[in-house]
């Protein structure tokens, strides 16, 4: 559809706007650009920007020798997948219950779910740490993941989606003798696929970058995710060797960043879909 362009900038205004927009974009991308520059150039060029500086991969081997980033990445993968798997199962079941079963006390139960939108596990660190100590889950992947396993946001999002599924499809499946879980599996989940993708992308990005709770609940290389490993690496082991710090930074962000560059549109749309309720 062609947009009416009566208020589109023209002439000088267009030039100024374009210049402003690009200047802002330059500032916004500068940290990432600097990290890429420094990671791929020798140390002496980390604060000197000359066009003919030689390229090198030496920084990467130095980082991987100095700290177990491979292990950290595996830990992050495990923790992120574990959270997502729990969230998908728990939120799907709950969302179906709230969307299609007008059970006794549903209103109160749903209000209790929504409480988590305001009181996130992120701020309940003291009590949740105590719980994890009692459950003997400190320094394990479930220890990092379980507080996020049931997500109010996921329940809310999927409930909205399930409510928009025509009731006739549900009834038709029931007439054919499908149980509630079979109906959910055959009718609702396939129809909600785009929402699942959106939710998964947002959840993965969020937990890949999560820092404070993993910092508290892990204390060994075997459980630490990338964010915590990076903080310990950059904060303690390295003085001010910027090329090594930037390389480590890039390694921590790389999988998500590459996925974003490849599927830019899906990422932006997913964050949007997940935000607009």
């Amino acid at each position, binding site marked *: 559809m062609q947009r009416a362009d*009566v208020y*589109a900038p023209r002439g000088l205004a267009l030039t100024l706007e374009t210049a402003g927009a690009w200047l802002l974009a330059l500032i916004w991308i500068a940290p990432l650009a600097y990290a890429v520059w420094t990671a791929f150039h020798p140390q002496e060029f980390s604060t000197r920007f000359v066009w003919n500086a030689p390229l090198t991969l030496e920084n990467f081997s130095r980082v991987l020798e100095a700290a177990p980033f491979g292990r950290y990445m595996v830990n992050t993968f495990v923790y992120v997948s574990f959270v997502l798997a729990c969230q998908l199962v728990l939120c799907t*079941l709950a969302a179906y219950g709230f969307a299609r079963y007008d059970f006794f006390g549903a209103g109160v139960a749903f209000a209790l779910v929504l*409480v988590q939108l305001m009181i996130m596990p992120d*701020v309940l*660190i003291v009590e949740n740490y105590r*719980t994890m100590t009692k459950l003997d889950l400190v320094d394990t992947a479930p220890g990092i993941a379980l507080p996020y396993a049931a997500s109010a946001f996921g329940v809310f999002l999927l409930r909205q989606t399930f409510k928009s599924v025509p009731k006739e499809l549900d009834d038709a499946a029931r007439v054919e003798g499908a149980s*509630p879980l079979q109906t959910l599996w055959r009718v609702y989940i396939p129809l909600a696929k785009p929402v699942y993708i959106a939710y998964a992308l947002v959840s993965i990005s969020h937990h890949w970058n999560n820092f404070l709770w993993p910092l508290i609940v892990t204390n060994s290389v075997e459980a630490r995710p990338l964010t915590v490993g*990076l903080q310990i690496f950059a904060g303690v082991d390295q003085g001010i060797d910027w090329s090594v710090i930037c390389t480590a*930074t890039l390694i921590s962000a790389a999988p998500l960043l590459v996925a974003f560059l490849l599927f830019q549109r899906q990422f932006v749309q997913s964050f949007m879909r997940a935000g607009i309720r």
Partner: protein
Amino acid sequence: MTRRLSHHVTGWLLVLPAMAFLALFTHWPALATFVDSFWSTPKGKRPARFVGPDNYQHMLSDPVFWKAAWNNLIFALGTVPLSIALALLMAVWVNDRLKGQTALRMAYFTPTILPMIAVANIWLFFFTPSYGLLDQIRGLFGAQPWPWLGSDQTALFCVIVVAVWKEAGFFMIFYLAALQQIPPTLAEAASLEGASRWTYFRRVQWPLLMPTTLFVFVNAAINAFRMVDHVFVLTHGGPDNATTLLLYYIYEVGFKFWDTAYAAALTVVLLVVLALIAAIQFGVIERRAHYR
């Protein structure tokens, strides 16, 4: 009758697993925080004992708490309006189909998916005195080096800048979606009436964007009280607590000084703040519903 009963039972069985996890990791800890804030911290063999409002009295006379609360207020007053304004500006620019629209949108949005803990390290370099990027650029104009993060005059400002940089592009996409939903006929009608672009924005676009602004406002306000990752990298709350935010202080008290009772009392303050934001949200949304 049995059919009705099985209906209720199935509904409960479906929501029960999620409710159990929420109860264990949200409802129970929230209540336990409140209860624990009236008890002392158990030390060694000495168990916790009921101390009434002692933790709160200690809080009132704790200068670091007041400093953290004040810093957090400044942090919120800095990040919320700045993020909203920049997000709107970005959305208008991307919506105007300037040259390289896709690249612009990507540049603005990229910080959203980068780990805060990682990019804060790069900002740390930018803020480094003398040879950091900021001072190198200022040096071109003959300015003297400045300890951006080491001075209590600028440290909190730097923490605000990094937070705005991180979240503005995320909020942009909501404004962008809302702008694209405004029917083009409104612009045509406004231009026939001879409205300037500014008038069109102020009288047509801005009011229509109000629901988006509310949504972004609430999210930015919540973020202002839970975004602390970059403090761990940039300043550790320093210099002299100039950048200590509430959640960061809770972390320090709870996991560095191991005074869990006092940390619980501080958490209660944070929960009250979040509840206030929720009250604002529901208050405004309900008022908005009257117009429909």
